[in-house]
């Protein structure tokens, strides 16, 4: 912050960004930094063509970390590395390490199913199962073999996701009878029911209306007390509102081989990224000069 005082020009203003909000976020007592994920030199190829390369950063426990950047820069690919969802794509290959509690997620003995039990994911478009609300939330516990006290688990998960009051009287109704925003909260409840450490959210509110979006963002504030949250968003204001740390990704274009590869440009606490970024590319992006 002291650098800002001695800078010759005024800090860049992002349209719609409330400076007071940023100051408040900066003073918001973030917990001490405890490393949960240590990403080192991560590269992802699809059929040999690199989509994302040389990413290194640390994700801190009980923080909300946002990945921002223009489309095509590999943010979604990157977040899917954390719960090994890229394994489901036959042409994808991941190199580098992601240490989680000291264990390399891509190590030889690690089972992706176990990884996903601890690291949950919410998708861009809500994808409830074609079952009842109750069965949607109960699916995770059932699959994990937690047959006892299922009703309590479902209720707790729905409360945590701020959906309980709205659905408690129609748990047997089809999940498709819910609105878009409710369905997304149902998907969050579904994740919470397996008691993960981490919630990965890939543009969780981009398919929702503004009111539902606000509801999801408020939820994130609540959830980060118990969980670590990583979100991908193309909405900078959203990142400024919810995230403690922000990582800015961009695209490196290789004219010769006609390739676009994603790279990590800058990673810092949110106020710094948005008011005093170190890299010009970051500044250009957050002030809207490109992207």
């Amino acid at each position, binding site marked *: 912050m002291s650098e800002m005082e001695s800078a010759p020009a005024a800090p860049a203003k992002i349209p719609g960004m409330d400076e007071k909000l940023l100051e408040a976020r900066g003073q918001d007592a973030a917990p001490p930094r405890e490393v949960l994920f240590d990403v080192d030199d991560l590269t992802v190829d699809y059929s040999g063509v690199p989509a994302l390369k040389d990413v290194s950063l640390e994700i801190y426990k009980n923080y909300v970390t946002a990945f921002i950047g223009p489309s095509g820069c590999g943010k979604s690919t990157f977040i899917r590395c954390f719960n090994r969802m890229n394994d489901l794509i036959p042409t994808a290959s991941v190199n580098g390490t992601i240490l*989680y*509690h000291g*264990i390399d*997620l891509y190590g030889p*003995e*690690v*089972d992706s*199913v*176990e*990884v996903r*039990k*601890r690291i949950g994911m919410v998708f861009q478009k809500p994808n409830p199962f074609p079952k009842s609300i109750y069965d949607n939330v109960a699916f995770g516990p059932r699959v*994990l073999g*937690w047959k006892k*006290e299922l009703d*309590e*688990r479902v209720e707790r998960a729905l409360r945590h996701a701020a959906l309980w009051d709205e659905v408690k009287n129609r748990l047997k109704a089809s999940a498709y009878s819910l609105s878009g925003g409710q369905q997304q909260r149902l998907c969050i409840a579904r994740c919470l029911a*397996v*008691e*993960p*450490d981490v919630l990965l959210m890939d543009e969780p509110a981009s398919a929702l209306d503004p009111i539902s979006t606000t509801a999801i963002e408020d939820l994130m504030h609540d959830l980060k007390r*118990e969980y670590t949250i990583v979100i991908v968003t193309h909405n900078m204001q959203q990142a400024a509102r919810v995230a403690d740390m922000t990582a800015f990704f961009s695209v490196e274009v290789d004219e010769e081989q006609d390739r676009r590869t994603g790279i990590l440009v800058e990673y810092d606490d949110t106020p710094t990224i948005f008011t005093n970024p170190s890299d010009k590319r970051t500044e250009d992006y957050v002030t809207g000069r490109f992207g």
Partner: protein
Amino acid sequence: MATQDISVGAQPEPIRLRAEGRRWSEAVVKTVLALCALVSVATTVGIILALVEPSIEFFQEVSIVDFFSGDRWAPLFEPASFGVQPLLVGTLVVTFWACLVALPLGLCVAIYLSEYARPRVRRILKPALEVLAGIPTVVFGFFALTFFTPLLQDIGVDVGTFNVLSAGLVMGVMLIPTVASISEDAMSAVPQELRDGAYGLGASRLQVSTRIVVPAAVSGIIASYVLAFSRAVGETMIVLIACAGIAQITLDPRDSVQTMTVFIGATGLGDVPTGSIEYKTIFAVGLTLFVITFAMNMVSIRLVRKFREIYE
């Protein structure tokens, strides 16, 4: 932390990310499913073995040259004669009449469905064609013998009780849905922009259908023709019922002939001693039939894949 304990905030246990024995049951499931898939492989292998082995024995007694060049088929007579040409010609003659009906009419039905019919009509017509396609061949055979042949005789066509014309024409109608559905698929895959471009130039529907859509869908249409031809070659019951005759080489549709399938069916109905030369003829003729239809099916599959690739 994913624990079995319902209370959150339990002491963190050392994180283990190993598979814990689950891999074994997953492998079992995959194996069981793969075995199911192997059934189809076993079927093909079985068909090939069942046909080839006795045929090899057959061709040790009857020379291949005699088989394909001989024009007298009389395996059960004394002296036996094993020239397969009458069966081949018989099959081809019936197939000719069937295709004469099915190919043009099937294409017209497809054009109607694709280019002319209103959605409401299509919704009735398509299922109705499915119904036609679902009628068992024995029923068509009955119809050919007991209704169509007398009808032909009544209008003055001098056909015998068993004749090629009746069986062939009825078989052709049976094959119309085959040609129509595959051709219509191919035509639907033609992009609307092509049609719009032509209509925009003032072309009539007739012109757009025949000069734009049909040529664009031609590989799918040919695929349907080949498949119909193959099915006509392999069809048994209609001919067995309406055209059961002796194996003779004749091009007159008012006569009756014996096709490969009818020979197999009729011989199989009898109690031929295993291992006898008559028994082996079933397999030799069967192998010939299989090879012909297999070749045509491969061509048809290739063509379907081609038109799918172009437009999808």
